[in-house]
């Protein structure tokens, strides 16, 4: 272990599990940007870059949440519904005259309850994560609908202008606040994942749940923590959505859980657990956002965009599989295990 710590070469960085794919997709992202930039000079205009970064921010946020859950070897299908729930609860409260900041805290709190349920259902009650979060997905969407009696809300009004600026329209140091929110949360959650015991436990149970259990990792609390992160970032995206629209729509966030999976796996997070870096999620979310934005500029029909994104998801995972099987044939399986234990025991 010490030996590898002292190696400060490029090879050392690449040897971090998942880093190779981060490099591959980063190169892909750069190529995409260049192509779109050549096709349309307005792509690199200050205005579009600012907008583009702000469009990436929500995808990055839910991507962080889904990455956490995927690394534990689970999945969170409730993300989109929690976004909708967060939007509808916050907007309904504001239209009824609640102080926006009070509404924000209450909204985050209720959304965290969904994460808590997810975590306990999966780890304590041992439901398959796909089923458990499918259930909470439906429930959360129902709550979104019932929040304002089955109607989209009215305008959240002038009183909430401060709230709208904080989450979406305002700028700090030249960048939109939404971008700052995403950066700050990314730094915090990346720190937790890579530098703390909880983070190492998250990787550990994703790699080998039995081994983790035997070495004293609490499966229930670790899994629940990951789901709480997921619900937290989803509730923030819901608040951003309310701020963007100035109202609450019951359909908000529809399908976001899968965008989050896409952002994660494009960035090299393994759906099998135990592997992934939040650096990758940044690149995955950026590729998603750049494609949405760039293909719109290029005048491509939405159908084409969907096909392109689908192909990229499949190819990026396929690349990873090929790279790994290539490695496996060269190295013995034990070396893989070794890297793993290093991450856990650090």
């Amino acid at each position: 272990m010490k030996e590898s710590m002292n190696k400060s070469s490029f090879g050392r960085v690449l040897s971090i599990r998942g880093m190779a794919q981060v490099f591959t997709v980063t190169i892909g992202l750069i190529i995409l940007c260049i192509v779109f930039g050549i096709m349309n000079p307005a792509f690199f205009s200050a205005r579009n870059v600012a907008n583009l970064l702000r469009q990436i921010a929500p995808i990055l946020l839910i991507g962080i949440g889904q990455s956490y859950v995927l690394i534990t070897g689970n999945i969170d299908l409730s993300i989109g519904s929690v976004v909708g729930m967060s939007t509808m609860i916050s907007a309904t409260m504001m239209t009824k005259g609640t102080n926006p900041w009070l509404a924000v805290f209450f909204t985050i709190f209720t959304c965290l309850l969904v994460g808590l349920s997810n975590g306990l259902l999966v780890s304590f009650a041992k439901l398959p994560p796909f089923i458990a979060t499918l259930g909470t997905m439906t429930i959360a969407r129902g709550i979104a609908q019932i929040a304002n009696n089955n109607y989209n809300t009215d305008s959240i009004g002038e009183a909430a202008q401060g709230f709208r600026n904080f989450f979406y329209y305002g700028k700090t140091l030249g960048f939109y606040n939404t971008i700052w929110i995403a950066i700050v949360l990314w730094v915090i959650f990346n720190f937790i994942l890579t530098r703390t015991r909880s983070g190492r436990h998250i990787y550990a149970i994703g790699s080998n749940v039995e081994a983790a259990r035997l070495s004293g990792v609490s499966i229930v609390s670790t899994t629940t923590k990951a789901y709480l992160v997921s619900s937290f970032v989803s509730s923030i995206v819901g608040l951003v959505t309310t701020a963007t629209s100035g109202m609450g729509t019951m359909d908000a966030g529809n399908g976001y859980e899968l965008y989050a999976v896409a952002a994660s796996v494009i960035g090299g997070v393994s759906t099998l657990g135990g592997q992934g870096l939040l650096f990758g999620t940044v690149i995955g979310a950026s590729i998603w956002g750049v494609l949405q934005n760039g293909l719109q500029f290029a005048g491509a029909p939405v159908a084409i965009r969907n096909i392109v994104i689908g192909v990229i998801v499949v190819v990026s995972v396929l690349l990873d599989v090929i790279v790994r099987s290539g490695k496996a044939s060269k190295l013995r399986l034990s070396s893989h295990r070794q890297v793993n234990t290093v991450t856990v025991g650090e």
Partner: protein
Amino acid sequence: MKKSVVVLLVLVLATALFAQGAKEAAGMKIYLITMDQMDQHWVNVDKGAQKAVSELGGITYKWLAPDVKDDAKQIECINNAVAGGANAILLAANGPNAVTAALKEAQEAGVTIVYVDSAANFPAVQTLATDNTAAGATAGKELLNALKGSGVNAGTIGIISVNSATASTVAREAGFRKAFEGTGFTLLETQYCDGDAARSKDMSANFITQGVVGLFGANEGSTVGVGNAIAEAGRAVIGVGFDKSDMILSLIKSGHLLATMAQNPDVMGYEGIKSAYKALKGEKVSPDYYDTGVSVLTKADL
């Protein structure tokens, strides 16, 4: 086993008694069946229908709707209405073909059928609906006139819609495009945002960066997105949209949207009941297709 048979028998008896009771109470019984209960749109159809019912008198009226849009559930509603002794059904059909078998049974039971909002492929007394193509064209003309009025005779225009499978918004888009045929304006590829106001705003902002002179939103969420993007950009982009909601009206009031096309669901309900009433009395109902039209709402109307 025996117990369950007894329970079943009691249930059947109770249902039969209920049905009997319902039949006796009926003078003229009209049911409204919509796609779901979620939309303000249906509430307004119901309001219009209730108004006609209270004006005409002697009608027992009831609104049935599934909790979510679902073909099987709508068929159940139709069957329930027939079993409940309906003389006429005002139906907003989920799709053109899914409910036709149920409607055939209803007709065989002597039920008069009137379509409100959307028709199925089955003959009925009358269809009362928004002609979405015409309404889209109206929106297009509003935008065209406003652009010309501000001295803009060429440029690109962006469209935000729901998806490519919703018949009403697809028709609106087609009508809108038609209004610009033979003008100096280019209509860009439509962006679909599932009616999500936040995504619609992002796509609208991209359009504005691309330098569009006008934007069109094909439903409520799309229109809110268009309005918010124009409000933020602060550029001379003109936006028109569809549907009437508090947020859309406030965007019109603040001058960020020029106009919205408001459907008249209350007219559908009101005139629908009247047509059903006429048909039940044996009078002739015409026309076959009643365009309930759209009202163009601008700042001046608020």
